[in-house]
C-alpha cells in the first residue's frame, strides 16, 4: 500500500531531527575533548607527540567518514562490546570531529604571536600556566569562527550514520520515501530541515569571522 505524505509523515521526519541534533552535540563534546588533546599534542615541544598528532590528523582527514563509521561499528563489536548503533555512530562522529577540530585549533594556537610565549616564559610562567593564562585565552578567540563553521560540516555528516540503522533525519526520509514514493516532497522536507539547522550556523560563522578581522585590523 502506498501511503500519502501527510502531516504524520512530516512529524515523523521532524521528530527524527532530535537524533541528528543529539549526535551532533555528543560528537562535538567528545570530539572537542579529543581534538583539544590532539591540538595540544600537535603544538607540543615533544617531537614524538607532534608526529603522533600530525599522523592522527592526516589519517582522519584522509579517509571517508563512512569508513570511520564502519570501523567503529565493527571494531567495537569485535572488541566484545554489544552496543546499540547509536554508540558506534557517536564514536565515529567524535573521531571524525577530533581530526578536524585538532587541526583547526592547532592553527589557532599557532596564530598567537610567538612573542607571547617569550614574554610569558620571561615572567617565569610554567608551560601549563602559559597555556592557561596567556595562549589559550587568545587562541580561543581566533578559534571560534572556524569551529562554528565546522559545526555545519558535522551536522551534515551525521546523515551518513543512517546506513547502520540510526533513524536520524536522512534515514527517516528514506523510510518515508519507501512508503510514499514522493521523493521530492520527502527529501525536500529533509533537506529543508537540514538547511534550517545549518544556515543560521553558517551565517553566524561568517559574522564572527568578519568581526574578528575587524577587531584585529582596528
Amino acid at each position: 500500500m502506498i501511503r500519502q505524505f501527510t502531516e504524520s509523515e512530516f512529524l515523523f521526519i521532524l521528530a527524527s531531527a532530535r537524533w541528528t541534533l543529539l549526535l551532533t552535540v555528543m560528537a562535538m563534546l567528545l570530539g572537542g575533548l579529543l581534538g583539544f588533546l590532539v591540538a595540544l599534542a600537535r603544538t607540543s615541544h615533544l617531537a614524538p607527540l607532534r608526529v603522533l598528532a600530525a599522523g592522527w590528523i592526516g589519517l582522519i582527514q584522509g579517509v571517508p567518514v563512512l569508513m570511520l563509521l564502519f570501523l567503529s561499528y565493527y571494531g567495537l563489536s569485535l572488541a566484545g562490546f554489544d552496543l546499540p548503533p547509536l554508540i558506534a555512530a557517536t564514536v565515529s562522529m567524535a573521531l571524525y570531529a577530533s581530526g578536524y577540530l585538532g587541526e583547526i585549533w592547532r592553527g589557532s594556537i599557532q596564530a598567537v604571536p610567538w612573542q607571547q610565549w617569550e614574554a610569558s616564559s620571561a615572567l617565569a610562567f610554567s608551560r601549563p600556566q602559559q597555556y592557561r593564562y596567556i595562549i589559550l585565552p587568545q587562541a580561543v578567540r581566533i578559534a571560534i569562527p572556524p569551529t562554528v563553521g565546522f559545526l555545519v560540516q558535522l551536522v551534515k555528516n551525521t546523515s551518513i550514520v543512517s546506513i547502520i540503522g540510526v533513524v536520524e533525519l536522512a534515514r527517516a526520509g528514506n523510510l518515508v520515501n519507501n512508503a510514499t514514493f514522493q521523493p521530492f516532497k520527502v527529501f525536500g522536507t529533509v533537506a529543508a530541515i537540514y538547511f534550517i539547522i545549518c544556515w543560521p550556523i553558517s551565517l553566524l560563522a561568517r559574522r564572527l569571522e568578519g568581526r574578528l578581522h575587524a577587531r584585529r585590523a582596528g
Partner: protein
Amino acid sequence: MGFQFQFQPVLARTDVLLDGLWLTLQLSGIGILFGALLGILLAMLRGLAGRPVRLLVDSYVEVVRNTPFLVQLLIIFFGVPTLGIRLSAEQAALSAIVLNLGAYATEIVRAGIESVHKSQIEAGLSLAMTRWQVFRHVVLAPALARVWPALSSQFVLMMLSTSVCSFISVQELSAQAANIESDTFRSFEVYILVTLIYLALAILLRLLLAGLGAVLFPTGSGLGRLRGQTGR
C-alpha cells in the same frame, strides 16, 4: 576472546576491489573536472551578470553548502526519474558530485576573484587589453593561483565523499567492500584494507594537485608568488 585477523579471504577478492577502485577514480576524476569548471563558470557569471543572476547563484551555493551530500544524492536518484528522466545510479551519483562540488568551487573561486584589487583591472584596461584578456589574465589566473590550496582540499574531500554513493548502490570502492564483507564476513579486515586504500588515494591526490599547482602557477612567476596567498 580470540579474534584472529584473516586477510586472505579478502585479498582473494582483489579483482572486485579493483573494479570498485576504478569506479571511484572515474567518479572522482570526472566529478572534480566538471565540478571545478561549473564553479569557475558560476563565479564568473556571478561577477559579470546582474543582480537576479547573482541572487540565483548565491542561493544555489547556500542551499548546497547547508544540506548533506547524501540528501542531495537521494533527491537526484529518487526524484529525477519521477520527472520522466531515466537516470542510472552512476549518472545520479555523478550529477550529485558535480552539483555539490560546483557550489563549493563557486564559493572558493568567488573569494579569489574578489581578492583581485580594482586597480589591477584598471591597469590592465589602460594597457589596451580587451575585457576578456583582463578577465583571463588579470582576474581569473591570479584568483585561481590564490585559492588553489583551498580548491585542492575541496577536491580531496569530494573524492572521499564519493564513498557515500554506495548508498544508492553505485558499485564503487566502499560498495564493493560491503559486497566482500557479506561474502566473507571478514568485516573489520575489509574495511581496514579499504580505509588504507582511501588514505593512499587521498595522499596521492594531494601530491598530484600540488604538482598541478606548481605547473599551472610556476614558482618564480607572478602567479607562483600568489599561490595560496589569501591576504589582500
